[in-house]
């Protein structure tokens, strides 16, 4: 029965030699704790199994310590495997390697004890076995290593040659050592062409060399590179085409030499796409930023997606606000949140109604200058008709607004002036022309008159006409002067003093009709006004009150002033004839309008009064009831 290792005939031969020398019937070899081979002719099969059992037991009981082996070496142990086969003797010889470790045991079994003379030979054989075993182990290790190395190389080559990226290995001076097929695809150079060239000089434009060398220099051999250790460079192909490369580099040190493994990824397309996007973004942003309006784009929750510099000047704030709402912004800037509330209400309205809102709003800068914007806020919907965003923008229409206000003012002035012009036209065509017509008719008749009496009568009639013409002409000139004299100086006027002067002028008439005049100027004793105008106004109103008195009662005239926040109110009231304002409202202050069958009514006074009041930005209005009385209310602004 044989337990051979098929692979090693050498052991078998050694064991056979041992058997021959020792004269034993059986020999066993155990290496590394396991039976390795056995040659036996006589030992019964069960004895071998017993022996195996014994050996295992023994080996475990005697670990491979030096002492134990010494005892093995100094004394050849003999074992009797059992009572049944007392004749079987086992001799266990340790197999020691050069460095004294026990590699296994050689066990001889037989019915005799081993002869002393054969012991040395057996030890020699043990040594040979140890040597063989060692060699065998070495060969095995070597073969294994070789196999492994071979596998690694294949793997490496596979990776290197099939890499998606260009992979280039350079030495510490950037000279190319290896150049994979993808590198050829990317750069157009084949391997033989690049050998001995410096990598950057071959694939980068000169402008990038400095940056590249600096980057490589700072690449540490001994620390793990962070993932971001990738650089983007502009590159150049063999045919001169430009491309963009993402450049990854890992340093390595092999047998004391330094290398760089370079991984190059062609990102031209990505770069171009990014650039295109960037350009587009810039293009639209430029437009949005250049538009003379403030623009803000909100998401469906009223958070800012975009705002242009006209919306928020400060770049930091502009960046801050993205993703936030007006409330956060107000809080951040420490502003009153009423603005945010107002805008939120508008936003919600747009969201709710899905319709835009337009409005004008005016804010005042710290200097008090108004800034008026035409604002719109409108919803934008996606293909499904869902709200995708809300855009708000405001157009600065301050200039236009101011212009409009100016125009409105001018229009008002124009229409007033136009009205006055019409009045003037009436004066010229009527008040002046009428007497002229009369005069020319009179002159015709004078020429045709047949008797002296008739002639004299006609000449007599000429005088009042000329007088009338003269008066009208003077009044016309006076009112023209008021219009032209818009810059006339104001001066402080003692109202009481002026009234007394006016009354003195009318004292005869006042006495005749028994008029009573009351006045109270305690609230505003002084008024800033051109004195000639003020006198004329007061004179006109008082003389009107006297002129249009009721025949049924003595006139009572009341004149007061009242101090109001922005103006002074002058009131002149009477208990005279009064007038039906329903009928005459439109014409009341017009020139040449007379409402009474009264000999002295010329219709000039109120027109003058109104002109003199409006020239100073004041107003005049009238309340009147027929046969009860008339009151005029005049406001005089404190400031122009």
């Amino acid at each position, binding site marked *: 029965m044989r337990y051979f290792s098929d692979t090693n005939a050498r052991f078998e031969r050694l064991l056979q030699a041992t058997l021959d020398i020792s004269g034993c019937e059986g020999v066993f070899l155990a290496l590394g704790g396991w039976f390795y081979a056995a040659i036996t002719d006589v030992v019964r099969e069960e004895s071998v199994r017993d022996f195996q059992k014994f050996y295992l037991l023994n080996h475990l009981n005697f670990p491979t310590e030096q002492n134990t082996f010494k005892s093995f070496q100094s004394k050849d142990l003999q074992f009797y495997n059992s009572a049944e086969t007392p004749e079987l003797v086992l001799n266990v010889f340790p197999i020691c390697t050069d460095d004294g470790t026990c590699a296994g045991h050689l066990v001889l079994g037989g019915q005799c004890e081993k002869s002393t003379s054969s012991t040395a030979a057996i030890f020699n054989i043990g040594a040979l076995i140890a040597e063989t075993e060692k060699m065998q182990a070495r060969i095995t290790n070597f073969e294994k290593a070789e196999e492994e190395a071979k596998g690694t190389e294949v793997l490496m080559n596979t990776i290197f040659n099939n890499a998606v990226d260009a992979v280039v290995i350079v030495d510490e001076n950037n000279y190319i050592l290896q150049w994979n097929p993808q590198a050829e695809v990317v750069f157009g150079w084949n391997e033989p062409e690049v050998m001995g060239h410096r990598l950057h000089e071959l694939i980068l434009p000169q402008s990038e060399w400095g940056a590249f060398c600096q980057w490589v220099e700072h690449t540490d051999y001994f620390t793990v590179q962070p993932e971001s250790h990738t650089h983007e460079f502009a590159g150049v192909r063999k045919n001169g085409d430009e491309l963009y490369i993402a450049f990854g580099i890992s340093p390595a040190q092999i047998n004391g030499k330094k290398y760089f493994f370079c991984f190059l990824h062609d990102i031209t397309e990505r770069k171009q796409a990014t650039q295109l996007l960037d350009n587009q973004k810039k293009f639209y942003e430029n437009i949005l930023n250049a538009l003379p309006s403030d623009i803000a784009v909100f998401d469906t929750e009223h958070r800012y997606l975009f705002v242009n510099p006209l919306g928020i000047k400060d770049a930091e704030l502009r960046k801050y606000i993205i993703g936030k709402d007006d409330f956060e912004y107000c809080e951040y800037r420490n502003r009153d949140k009423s603005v945010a509330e107002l805008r939120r209400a508008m936003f919600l309205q747009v969201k709710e109604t899905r319709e835009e809102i337009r409005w004008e709003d005016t804010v005042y800068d710290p200097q008090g200058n108004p800034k008026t914007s035409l604002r719109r806020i409108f919803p934008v919907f996606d293909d499904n008709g869902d709200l995708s965003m809300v855009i708000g923008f405001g157009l600065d229409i301050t200039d236009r607004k101011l212009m409009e206000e100016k125009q409105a003012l001018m229009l008002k002035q124009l229409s007033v002036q136009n009205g006055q012009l*019409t009045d003037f*036209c*009436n004066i010229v*065509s*009527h008040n002046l*022309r*009428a007497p002229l*017509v*009369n005069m*020319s*008719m*009179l002159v015709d*008749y004078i020429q045709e008159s047949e008797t002296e009496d008739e002639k004299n009568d006609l000449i007599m*009639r000429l005088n*009042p*006409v000329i007088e009338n013409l003269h008066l009208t002409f003077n009044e016309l000139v006076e009112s023209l002067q008021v219009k032209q004299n818009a810059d006339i100086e104001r001066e402080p006027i003692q109202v009481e003093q002026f009234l007394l002067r006016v009354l003195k002028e009318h004292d005869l008439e006042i006495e005749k009709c028994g008029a009573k005049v009351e006045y109270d100027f305690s609230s505003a004793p002084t008024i800033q006004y051109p004195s000639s105008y003020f006198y004329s106004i007061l004179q006109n109103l008082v003389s009107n009150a006297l002129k249009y008195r009721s025949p049924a009662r003595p006139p009572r005239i009341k004149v007061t002033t009242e101090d109001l926040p922005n103006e002074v109110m002058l009131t002149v009231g009477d208990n005279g004839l009064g007038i039906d304002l329903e009928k005459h409202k439109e014409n009341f202050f017009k020139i*040449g*309008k*007379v*409402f*009474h*069958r009264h000999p002295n*009514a010329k*219709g000039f006074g109120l027109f003058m009064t109104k002109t003199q009041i409006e020239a100073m930005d004041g107003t005049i209005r009238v309340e009147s009831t027929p046969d009860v009385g008339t009151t005029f209310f005049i406001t005089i602004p404190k400031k122009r």
Partner: protein
Amino acid sequence: MKVFLVDDDKLFVFLTKKTILSTRLATGITEFNDGENAIEFIKEHAGKPDELPDVIFLDLSMPIMDGWTFLKEFEAVKDLMSKKIIIYVFTSSISPHDLERAKGIPHVADFLIKPLERDQFVQLLSDKVA
């Protein structure tokens, strides 16, 4: 032919009356110094053709009731008139605005600018006679 002169300018009325009388075409000339007197008279005598005028010379600028108001009031009552009354606006106004306005009123026969010569009155009044 009965003529009404509605005008507040007494001198002008005096002289015009003189001129019209000299034409010998008018049988009677009545003066009114404002529109209100005139329209009240006409309303009162609407049913009496003998009292109503054939021709009215109407001034525009008058106190109390001006010519325009008179025309408006007359418009309201003209269908009650028992006689066809011809109204001439007779004014010293040379304002084109007044002229346009007067032309817009259908029962104004013409817009006459003061003064008129005797011959012109002759023409106007004899046309009516014919």
